[in-house]
């Protein structure tokens, strides 16, 4: 049962698959991906596959082409938001480019003119940053166009998930292809699948509060808060138990680090 969706996805990826050409251009041929992306690709595959897939894997006898990828795509909400991804990265690149440029302009230094000074290397990097910004922005625009075409195309086929899986299988499958072996493809949502912003912001907010209260309130309070907040944000339902576990962990840490290793932790309320 579990292996079936994967094998179907493989078949879909072996070249018979129609959705191939509907992939956004920049993801066309990943030679190698980074650790995190691969991790999550596999993680997601596990998650989605272990869930009962909406159409039964065997229910599509004309599988192998468009219908098969459904099995590995998981929930319908995992449809891609293809355009936002590159715009966000282009914005990040722009931020870095501006930061580097302003930094070079305001840099205050004396030095002889012959040897390259402290602004030399940042100048090289900022050129690189501007190139990346423009490149990613162009990519993002092209991708958005391709996406709108794709949406129209998949509406005709009544198979909105097909495109998503083609994106996703490009991940690890591309890696396997790159070494000359079309092995098992791993279907998971693309990295731009919908984000649970609420949970993510809750974790980030919890951490921000931890930073703010660490010194005034001390490690025991702040550490307990951090554990409790993150556990709650990640979907734990047991408020009191989490609080107890958090307090226990914070206390053990206080003892091990403070007393054992002699590293300083803020005492906060305890020191009053």
């Amino acid at each position, binding site marked *: 049962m579990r*292996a079936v969706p994967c094998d179907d996805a493989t078949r879909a990826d072996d*070249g018979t698959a129609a959705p191939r050409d509907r992939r956004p251009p920049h*993801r066309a041929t*990943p*030679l*190698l*991906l*980074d*650790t*995190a992306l*691969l*991790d*999550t690709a*596999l993680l*997601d595959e596990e*998650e989605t596959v272990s869930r009962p897939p909406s159409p039964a894997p065997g229910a599509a006898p004309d599988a192998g082409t468009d219908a098969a990828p459904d099995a590995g795509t998981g929930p319908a909400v995992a449809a891609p938001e293809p355009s936002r991804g590159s715009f*966000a*990265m282009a914005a990040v690149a722009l931020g*870095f*480019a501006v930061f*580097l440029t302003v*930094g070079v302009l305001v840099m*205050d*230094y004396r030095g002889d003119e*012959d*040897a*390259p000074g402290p602004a*030399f*290397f*940042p100048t090289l*990097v900022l050129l*690189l*940053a501007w190139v*990346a910004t423009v490149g*990613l922005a162009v990519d993002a625009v092209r991708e958005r166009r391709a996406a709108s075409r794709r949406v129209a195309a998949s509406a005709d086929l009544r198979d909105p998930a097909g495109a998503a899986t083609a994106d996703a299988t490009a991940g*690890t499958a591309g890696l*396997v*292809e*790159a070494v000359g072996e079309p092995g098992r493809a791993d279907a998971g*949502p693309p*990295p731009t699948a919908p*984000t*649970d*912003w609420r949970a993510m912001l809750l*974790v*980030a907010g919890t*951490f921000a509060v931890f*930073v703010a209260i*660490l*010194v005034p309130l001390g490690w025991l309070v702040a550490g307990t808060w*951090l554990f409790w907040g*993150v*556990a709650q944000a*990640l979907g*734990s339902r047991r408020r009191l138990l*989490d609080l107890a576990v*958090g307090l226990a*962990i914070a206390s053990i840490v206080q003892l091990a680090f403070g007393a054992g290793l*002699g590293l300083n*932790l803020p005492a906060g309320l305890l020191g009053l």
Partner: protein
Amino acid sequence: MDVFADLAGGFSTAFTPMNMLWVFLGAVLGTAVGVLPGLGSSMAVALLLPVTLALDPTGALIMLAGVYYGGLFGDSITGILLNTPGNSSAIATTFEGHKMALDGRASQALATSAIGAFTGGLIATSIIAVGAPLLAGLASAFGPAEFFALAAFAFVATAFVVADSVLKGVVALVIGFTVGVVGIDSQTGTVRYTLGVPQLFDGVGIVVITVGLLALGEVFYVASRSRWQSGTRLVAVQGRPFLNRKEFREALPAWLRGTSFGVPFGVIPVGGSEVPTFLSYGTERRLDSRRRNPQFGRGAIRGVAGPEAAGNATAGTAMGALLALGLPTSATAAVLLGAFEQFGIQPGPLLFDRSGDVAWALIASLFIGLFVLLVLNLPFAPLWAKLLQVPRHYLYAGITVFAGLGIYVSAGSVVDLVVLLLLGLLGFLMRRHGVPLAPVLIAVILGPLAEINLRNTLAISQGDPSALVASGVSTTIYVLMALAVTLAVVSKVRSRRSADV
């Protein structure tokens, strides 16, 4: 042979009870972090670095040697039992390993992977024990121009080969370079990119960067997807944890072939062990399909043995490249280089002269660590798997607490925690949009070295850029770089073509 005399000296340092304890602790903690899904060897080193700050440099590096290999051993346990590899280096192992587990041969798969990791690590570590001093001797003729060429090679290789899109690789490099230039310029004393925050004058610590991008970024990412996560099924482990003679004979050639794939890739900066593990997986699969009774797809023992040996062999020789050249070839090696610098030890050609005792103790502890890990993993792998039963929200809450704690105790500064949060958000964005993290780490670590060497080269030549390619060594490195880029581009174009059919 003075190599063996030096190595014996290293073993005598490492065999003190305290240092043995550090190796053991490192191996245990490294395996524990490696077992956790999504956390690999690089994160194990980053998260445990603050713990080692209380030790003397030798003890700390000895412990990190245990963590380094421990993370790699732990990765594959998760992959085999849960089908979610702890790290990208364990993906190739997972394919056949999980099938073996589903087939009721989980303990054999775990044993095959542990022995494979041991074999690959042992052969690679033996090679670096003999080869690293030779390599260092060779590299001691390197001047600033040659070092810059080497660093440039690493940048180009990671950006072009590791990333699925060159632009994303470039963005990752830019991020790394930018974080690397924050602080006081060592040559002129100019304050750069600190936004007037005095705590940033010394730059952003490598621990803050790795824990922020890797650990906190991962926690944010997990949170952003937790709504779509359902429970994963853990395969139970039963039966004998050892291989019988037939299985051993079956796996042996794959272990050796995997090792031979892994060894050369340790010294090539292509971002770690994904390439050799997949090369090994592909080779074993092809050889298997020619046999009378093909095993692949049904849980082939060779599909576990080969990639696992390749992964650890790469890690082994990567350590050699780090010690002898000061060149990190993977994210984990980059973090380790940062750790070395924290303790005032500069890896590179001069390491064996300046801090020879530490270097040899480290190599000796790599050997000891491998034996400890074999013992820890062969009979006790099912125990490690119990870690996977800890609820996910507790796991990640614990990681977050540990990340915040580690960063605070390493410098006692709240500013570091703020930077950590910002880097965590950046790491989240990069994960979400598929930007690789390895180039960031390599750029952060090697960027400042590259800058100094570039400026020294140009200062000596009085601004004449031809000095960069004047020597035979640097020209050779640039030619190799051009070849690597051409190869990468050709293979990308080729796979694009085959994809479009």
